[in-house]
């Protein structure tokens, strides 16, 4: 699917802990995250989006995939961990019609999926925080999909494709959001928010690597690193680290984005970043490394190499026959003619 045909006009990575909403002044980092949320709100308000679709890592499911379809869910939410920061009253607006279509297409694609439409359903902290901050007046309806604790890449990828198909079929212009931290390790004692910092150097290094990739628009590359991120930078509460699989699949599984890190700070030790991804005509960096099907081995592709290095140093990039976009030629004359297929 080319960038122009994909119904997603922008993708966002948003952190889900409540501090930027409830206590933005407790720490300059929280305040900066809040500013970035505000920036996302303004961007969406100025776009022609008519739907926000959220995949929240903070909404686990067991029975397949649950999709929020209550038109106007209303509650006073309290986070089970940070209950002392205050209550979060909310009234949201959901696109029930889209939710039903999404569930139906997910089922057509072999997934077990259902909508949920119950008064008092416990919408997760992350989704509530995100929607309160980026869509405070409910100008645009939203849909939230759960994260199945057992699902892995294939299932999550299909879930992303089902979202894209639902957006296309419904004619919606969509903003895709994943609610997820990067590193998710919280400090294990009660901290003074003033002293908040990323839990460990290892987590910080992984966060920087993810940020570096996303700044280059390399969404699919981050998606393909998900298993390694899960092993090395995530506390393992679920089977795998899935949000980037969903987002990349939804947005077309490529690296053709303008990526902007609007904020990166720690919230109780986690790597919390607000990142925007806008489809770009040119591949920021064509290092897709696993999705082609080569007939001849071209050598190691070194996907962890610094993004700033010249592509000409990667011999395997010179004769890609897979998804290397012809548009990539515009930034590197080293790419041979006719290599693209989209």
């Amino acid at each position, binding site marked *: 699917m080319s960038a122009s045909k994909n119904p997603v006009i922008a993708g966002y990575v948003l952190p889900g802990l409540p501090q930027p909403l409830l206590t933005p002044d407790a720490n300059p980092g929280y305040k900066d995250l809040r500013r970035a949320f505000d920036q996302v709100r303004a961007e969406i308000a100025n776009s022609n989006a008519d739907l926000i679709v959220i995949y929240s890592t903070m*909404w*686990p*499911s*067991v*029975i*397949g995939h*649950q999709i929020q379809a209550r038109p106007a869910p209303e509650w*006073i*939410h*309290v986070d*089970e*961990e940070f*209950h*002392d920061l*205050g*209550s979060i009253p909310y009234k949201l607006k959901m696109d029930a019609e889209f939710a039903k279509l999404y569930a139906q297409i997910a089922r057509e694609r072999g997934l*077990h999926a259902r909508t*949920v439409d*119950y*008064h*008092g*359903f*416990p919408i*997760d902290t992350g989704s509530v925080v995100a929607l309160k901050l980026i869509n405070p007046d409910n100008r645009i309806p939203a849909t939230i999909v759960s994260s*199945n604790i*057992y*699902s892995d890449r294939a299932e999550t990828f299909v879930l992303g494709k089902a979202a894209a198909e639902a957006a296309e079929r419904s004619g919606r212009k969509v903003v895709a959001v994943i609610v997820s931290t990067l590193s998710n*390790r*919280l*400090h*294990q*004692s*009660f901290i003074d928010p003033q002293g908040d910092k990323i839990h460990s150097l290892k987590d910080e290094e992984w966060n920087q690597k993810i940020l570096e990739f996303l700044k280059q628009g390399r969404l699919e590359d981050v998606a393909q690193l998900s298993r390694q991120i899960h092993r090395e930078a995530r*506390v*393992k*509460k679920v089977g795998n680290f899935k949000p980037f699989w969903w987002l990349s699949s939804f947005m077309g599984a490529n690296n053709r984005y303008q990526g902007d890190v609007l904020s990166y700070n720690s919230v*109780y030790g986690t790597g919390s970043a607000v990142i925007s991804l806008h489809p770009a005509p040119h591949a920021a960096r064509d290092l897709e490394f696993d999705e082609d099907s080569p007939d001849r081995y071209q050598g190691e592709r070194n996907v962890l190499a610094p993004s700033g290095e010249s592509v000409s140093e990667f011999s395997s990039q010179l004769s890609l026959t897979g998804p290397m976009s012809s548009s990539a030629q515009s930034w590197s004359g080293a790419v041979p003619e006719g290599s693209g297929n989209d």
Partner: protein
Amino acid sequence: MKTGEIVLGALAPHPPHLVYAENPPQNEPRAECGWETLRWAYDGLRASVRAAKPEVIVLMSPHWRTYVGFHFLGLPHFKGLSVDPIFPNLFRYQYDLKVDVPLAEAICQATAQKGLAAKMMRNPDYRIDYGTIVSCHMINPAWDIPIVGISSHAVSAYFNFDVMETTMKTLAEATREAIAKSGQRVAVIASNSLSHRHFTTESDVPEDMSREHIYHHGQYLWDMKMIELMRQGRAQEVLDLMTDFTEQATAETDSGALSWLLHTLNVPTSPAKIHGYGSVIGTGNAVVEWKGVAL
């Protein structure tokens, strides 16, 4: 003041399916039947709890998962609607419960004094997790005994099962000390399943028992191994095997609740009473009772 007493300990798992199948007035969805062997098992435990006459029920729930320390319900009264985020089609329950705040504070304080992170939860808008509600309902549907609700601190995910074990042992010591000082008759409850791999699909009639069975034979073998040790009064061996069991049976003992319970009961050597065992959406669940212990 007299020394407090643990009058009973129990493993009381919380699948919402059990409340659903009971059709109590508090729960909105209606069921035709379902999971009877486990519900009959709860009849037995309920009778034992009544006979033991506890003044307080102290319970740890895997579904109040906290990542920074142990949290304790800290207001005298909670009332509201609990909708299960996983099975909202089965569980939409109006709860109304009382908390023994002084005992909760005492356990919290003792836990903190032993060097663990512990805090009280005093937000009146807080919604009680469905694990706490299901176990409490199945043990005491009249809700006439106050509770102490303890969160399960995700130590096993953050560190490993050995750290979980020592952490739960420390929490258990704090629990015992606070109960002793309270002078009250207390029942202690771990609200967790045993093996815990679920099916990820559900039949159109959730209570269709022709579809209900354990997810995997290996889980069943592990559950039976652990239950047999409990029956023989070999709780130390249950603790010794906890790591392997939890990993290999993807057991809900990763919450630490069972470890905390067994340590709170001073690692019982008397045989446990197995009220019953059954699967719920593939997971293994045992309703188990231990005799009380003097403190």
